[in-house]
């Protein structure tokens, strides 16, 4: 434990319930703290309080050791951190103290230094340099002891700092319009696919114009659904005018059946809006984002809304239990799950009103399109017509709808 015979970083399995945390950690850490190295006991967040109490109880009185705890996160001011932390680390080392630390603290401190260093405005202020110097001091002097190492080193864990000025998503607003299009397409095909795979899909439809809750239960059904959607989308606007050959190549490319021939046919479109559209579809359909959101993620269990924080969908820890700070990192996953959250849960009352207020205010050609879309999908045409005629839309639109209705 103290001097692994390989001389490399080492993990051990010790049987549970025989005193790993309460005996081994205090003994090992107090022996290692010899004034030359900074001993850090790395412990998971839920266990940190307990570990601190154990060390204080076992070591501070009997062995006269000081136990340090220096929580760190992005909220700590960089200037303060750069001035105060290194002297504290150093005194902990010299006094043969023991530092209790959570994985988040170590990683956050490391990222803060890098974040500051790549920012232009900080290049000359010295804050970044001091932070990086503290980091390299830690690199040279810290001796880490991990408790519950397999959870600390779990592959699932990462800490992300976003950096730079926030900008709109690439290809907005097409980005989310396409995702919505794909979801509606999936809804349309889902019923047919359920006939082929009766156990492969679960569809819960409540009312006609409400988006049904779709769950993919069988991987084969998911692949089939993605392929159907891909074929359907390629028959629509944007692709309809492509030559037959290019359309076939695009279909293969979107469903990830790659070949050099396809690549050369599609090569001429590179850099165009069409190419970006194809790439997006490939991500959603071929690479499985659609299947991922409908198969692996359950509404209200794995994701849902947290209006206090953001309007987008956020990960849930368990059913109806929010995570405190996590977000979906992948933009298309975030968009798709946000769409589904609102489809399944509906809009709150005030947001419905807000929509109508916006609709009435919009003064551009797209108004017609929006109103058309809303009416086209609406539950009972008569009532809607009744509402709409009183809402005061321009007469031309009203006329169109009466006309459309007479055709039906």
């Amino acid at each position, binding site marked *: 434990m103290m001097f*692994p015979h390989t001389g490399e970083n080492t*993990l051990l399995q010790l049987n549970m319930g025989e005193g790993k945390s309460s005996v081994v950690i205090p003994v090992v850490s107090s022996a290692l703290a010899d004034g030359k190295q900074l001993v850090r006991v790395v412990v998971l967040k839920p266990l940190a309080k307990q570990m601190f109490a154990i060390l204080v109880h076992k070591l501070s009185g009997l062995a006269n050791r000081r136990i340090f705890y220096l929580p760190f996160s992005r909220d700590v001011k960089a200037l303060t951190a750069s001035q105060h932390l290194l002297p504290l680390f150093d005194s902990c080392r010299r006094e043969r103290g023991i530092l209790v630390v959570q994985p988040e603290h170590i990683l956050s401190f490391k990222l803060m230094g890098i974040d500051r260093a790549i920012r232009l405005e900080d290049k000359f202020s010295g804050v970044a340099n001091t932070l990086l110097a503290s980091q390299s001091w830690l690199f040279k002097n810290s001796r880490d002891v*991990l*408790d519950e190492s397999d959870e*600390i080193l779990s592959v699932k864990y990462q800490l992300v700092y976003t950096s730079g000025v926030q900008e*709109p998503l690439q290809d907005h607003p097409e980005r989310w319009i396409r995702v919505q299009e794909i979801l509606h397409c999936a809804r349309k095909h889902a019923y047919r696919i359920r006939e082929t795979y009766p156990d492969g899909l679960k569809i819960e439809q409540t009312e006609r*114009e409400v988006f049904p809750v779709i769950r993919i239960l069988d991987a084969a059904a998911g692949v089939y659904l993605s392929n159907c959607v891909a074929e359907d989308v390629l028959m629509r606007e944007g692709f309809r005018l492509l030559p037959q050959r290019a359309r076939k190549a695009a279909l293969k490319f979107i469903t990830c059946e790659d070949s050099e021939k396809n690549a050369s046919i599609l090569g001429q479109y590179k850099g165009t809006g069409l190419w970006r559209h194809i790439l997006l579809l490939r991500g959603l359909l071929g690479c499985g984002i659609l299947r991922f959101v409908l198969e692996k993620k359950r509404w209200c269990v794995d994701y849902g809304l947290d209006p206090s924080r953001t309007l987008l969908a956020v990960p849930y820890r368990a059913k109806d239990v929010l995570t405190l700070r996590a977000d979906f990192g992948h933009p298309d996953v975030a968009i798709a799950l946000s769409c589904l959250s609102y489809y399944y849960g509906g809009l709150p009352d005030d947001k419905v009103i807000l929509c109508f207020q916006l609709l009435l205010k919009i003064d551009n050609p797209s108004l017609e399109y929006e109103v058309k879309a809303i009416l086209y999908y609406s539950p009972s045409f008569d009532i809607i017509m009744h509402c709409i005629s009183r809402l005061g839309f321009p007469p031309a639109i009203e006329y169109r709808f009466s006309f459309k209705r007479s055709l039906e």
Partner: protein
Amino acid sequence: MNIEDQDQRQIYLIPLFSKNYAVIDFYLSNVVFPKEAKQFPMRLAASSWDLAEKKGFVTTGFSGTNDNRYLLPTTIDQNDFLGQGGTNAKVLSYLMRPENNHYFCLEVAGRLLSSRNFLECMVAQFPPIHVLLDVGAQMLDMQSPEIASTWLSLSSERVEAIVFFDQHDQLVIMSRDGTTEPLEASQFSQKLDLCGIYLDDAHTRGMDLNLPKDFRAAVTLGPHLTKDRLVQGKNIHESQCDLTHVSYQVVCACEN
């Protein structure tokens, strides 16, 4: 029709349109995404590789389970003592003991039991159950303090207090008069045999509590529960010979 009119709103607009997907698409495209769907030019990420990097001094660690030994960063190795080789089998043999072989399904007529019904079931068991380890995160509709008070209200006078973790990761105890105080400061800290213990899924790992030998625990299972988490949850009491009452949910796990 007037959208400012409360009655008309409640009767026509909201019920007709609140779940209508065209309206929702409009809302998303005009309100939600333009404001929230943003990206940053750079993302800095750190992970376990940074915790296990090779540095001036070696890093050592230990754990009771080694199930992810093949997924560790390559800068750190699992090097188990020869004498500890039987650990995994030993733990499994605890699990397989006849007294641990009690299973019970949480579903009634295809629906999951609520936390309250589950606690009622648990309190009715004999011999009585003293510890509830919610490894499978099944107590979804209640927070820990609520579970503690419900448990107290359901159980007989013999259980005088419930120990659980509050939201600050602090071990606290709730007594029959409803007061909550830190466990160390409580008169019950040396009288755990009079208490019930509830550990939520975040706190079942690596917890050390000195429990009486004859304590019986219930462990919940859930979807995506891996063996190491289950075993970690059980480690609290395996040195004490106890009975384990596992309520499980495999039906549900398969369906999902």
